């Protein structure tokens, strides 16, 4: 019993990581309807940013979070304006190929500039453990858990109550109508993409203390992120939160029963089942 409890708790903690990565993706997908192939690579770049701030300027990743997040927003905004929005001509397939091209560029530029070594961050709390009853929890993972909750909350409130948020939602729901109401649709698209990447910036800083970065690290998260997004419902933050947690727990529990390797099957399997039986997700998204 204890064992299952720990599996569930650990599942929630790893799920939080998936939420962090997926939350930007669900926003981007929900608003722009594009499968952002570059998501994993951009996460990787944000993690490098966090790493270099730590190594060269001695800024702790948690403290660097605001800086990296803002930087990521600007990077995402510019990327959309300069490349994605400009060259896609609005066609979905084109955007796909462009984000694919971006991920190839990002991964190999990282390889060229930063070399292929794996980098880790060693902070005082990296290996700290918290004892909560019978369960041992990794401190950085607990921090990312709460970080995910806070991020979801902030985004949810922002989307619901701020003018920009409302504009974004309008654009997502009804583009032509939004434009006719005077909303600068292209600007909103760029802002949405920027916010999506900003989430990656936050995720990167929360991840670094317990993980590592190398040019190809983004690939580990891509499929899980997509699964989370679809499970939770495209465009729904509460959905991404619930979806990520559910996936984390499912993966954790199935690993406990079927072994680490076969347990990995939980994710694509879950993905397939959700797509077949409830493609709009747990929380019906903006679709």
């Amino acid at each position, binding site marked *: 019993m204890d*064992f299952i409890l*720990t*599996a569930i708790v*650990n599942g929630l*903690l*790893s799920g939080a*990581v998936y939420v962090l990565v997926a939350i930007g993706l669900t926003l981007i997908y929900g608003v722009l309807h594009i499968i952002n192939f570059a998501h994993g690579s951009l996460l990787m770049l944000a993690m490098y940013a966090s790493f270099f701030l730590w190594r060269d300027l001695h800024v702790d990743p948690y403290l660097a979070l605001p800086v990296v997040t803002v930087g990521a927003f600007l990077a995402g905004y510019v990327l959309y304006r300069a490349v994605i929005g400009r060259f896609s001509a609005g066609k979905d397939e084109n955007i796909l190929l462009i984000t694919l091209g971006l991920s190839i560029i990002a991964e*190999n530029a990282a*390889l*060229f*500039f*930063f*070399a*292929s*070594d*794996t980098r*880790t961050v*060693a902070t005082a709390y*990296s*290996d700290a*453990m918290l004892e909560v009853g019978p369960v*041992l929890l*990794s401190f950085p*993972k607990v921090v990312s858990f709460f970080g995910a909750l806070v991020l979801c909350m902030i985004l949810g409130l922002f989307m619901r109550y701020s003018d920009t948020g409302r504009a974004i939602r309008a654009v997502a729901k009804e583009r032509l109508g939004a434009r006719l109401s005077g909303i600068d649709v292209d600007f909103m698209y760029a802002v949405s993409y920027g916010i999506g990447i900003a989430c990656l910036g936050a995720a990167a800083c929360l991840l670094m203390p317990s*993980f*590592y970065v*190398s*040019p*190809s*690290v983004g*690939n*580990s*998260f891509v499929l*899980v992120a997509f699964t989370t997004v679809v499970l939770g419902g495209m465009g729904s933050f509460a959905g991404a939160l619930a979806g990520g947690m559910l996936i984390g727990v499912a993966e*954790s529990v199935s*690993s*406990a029963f079927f*072994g*680490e*390797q*076969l347990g*990995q099957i939980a994710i694509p399997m879950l993905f397939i089942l959700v797509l077949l039986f409830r493609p709009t997700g747990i929380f019906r998204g903006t679709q």
Partner: protein
Amino acid sequence: MTPHLKHRRQFILGSAAAIAGASIPGLGRAQNTAVKLGVVHPMTGPVAYNGQHCRIGTLTAIEDLNARGGIKSLGGIPFQAVTGDSQGRVEVGVSEVERMHNLGVHAYVGCYNSPVTIAATQAASRYGTPFVVDVGASDLIVSRKLENVFRFSPGFGKCVDDGLLALTEINKKANGVAKTVVLVHESGELGTGTIRLLQDKLPRLGFTVLDTIAHDTPTRSFDNVALRIRGMKPDIVMHTGYVNEYMLLARTLQRYKVPAVRYSILGAGFGVKFAKESPDAAAYAMDFNHWYNPLDSRAVDLKKRIESKGFDYVFEVYCAYNAVMLLADAIERSGSLAADKIIQSLSASTWDKHFMPYGPTRFVNGQNEGAAGCGLQVINDEINVVFPDKFAQAAAVFPRPAS
């Protein structure tokens, strides 16, 4: 490592190849003015780190050979590297082999990834061109009776046998106190091949395998694995995997205060970097892996040179370095650049001027039977050879002292 050094590194990987060829006057495409060596490794992709280190080892060896005057029996002709990036993909590796054949290479060195090595050596075999495998763990590489294939370093079969021998001896010295084992492995060729052998042999040596845990490459989290292992309370945890997963698991086990001995066979993440960056997790960790002969000053000299170029002194470097030296010796003795003569020469090779902990070279079915790995342990933040006694720098600390 400063950013400055990083750029120097990139520059070196590219220019060393050019230097190896260009600085020698009169070098043309004519057949016997240079020994052309095809160098195929993954420069990009997920194992770029390892491939790049294989390449720098190869290029440094060529530099040294040329500085010494090249192949004397052929009139002092130099080596010329023809480098290629396999990207870790089979079809690209084979394509590179073909391209290099077109450029008239006399031999190949490569390819780090087992699948690429298998396909590339096969492609080369159609031309009968000798192929020296510097690093490539799968025993499938030497199981095909291809006459042109020569693997200099030990495969996982040999590493498992020797690694277990080392373990039993070390355990015996500690009064046989370790009895139970949990096996963790990555799900590819390296992990699966190694683990099958371990599952077979461990019980026969008196150990009980409590569980076998397979994991993907990449793996995002080992928390559950660590908990499971902690629950089983094994004396030893054996992990065969690649760099990132090895380090992640080691750190996770440390966090969960799992007291078991860490003993890996071909644990790819074990190394100087690991010992330096994660001293707590690395303390007393043991690995049976490729290593250099610590008592040979040439090995230490090379270490300084490689590190000054901005690279790490990992086994990819010196395995590749010595593989090229092996080839050079064979060519020197054969006095010919003809493929069949080189192959004959390699087959008969008893070269022992390497600085590996190997005996004299002895190829049987393409495998150097003289090759062997070493038992290593992190003691006081330094990696020491602890087995075999002939090369040992320190006695093994076994079992793990309570922290």
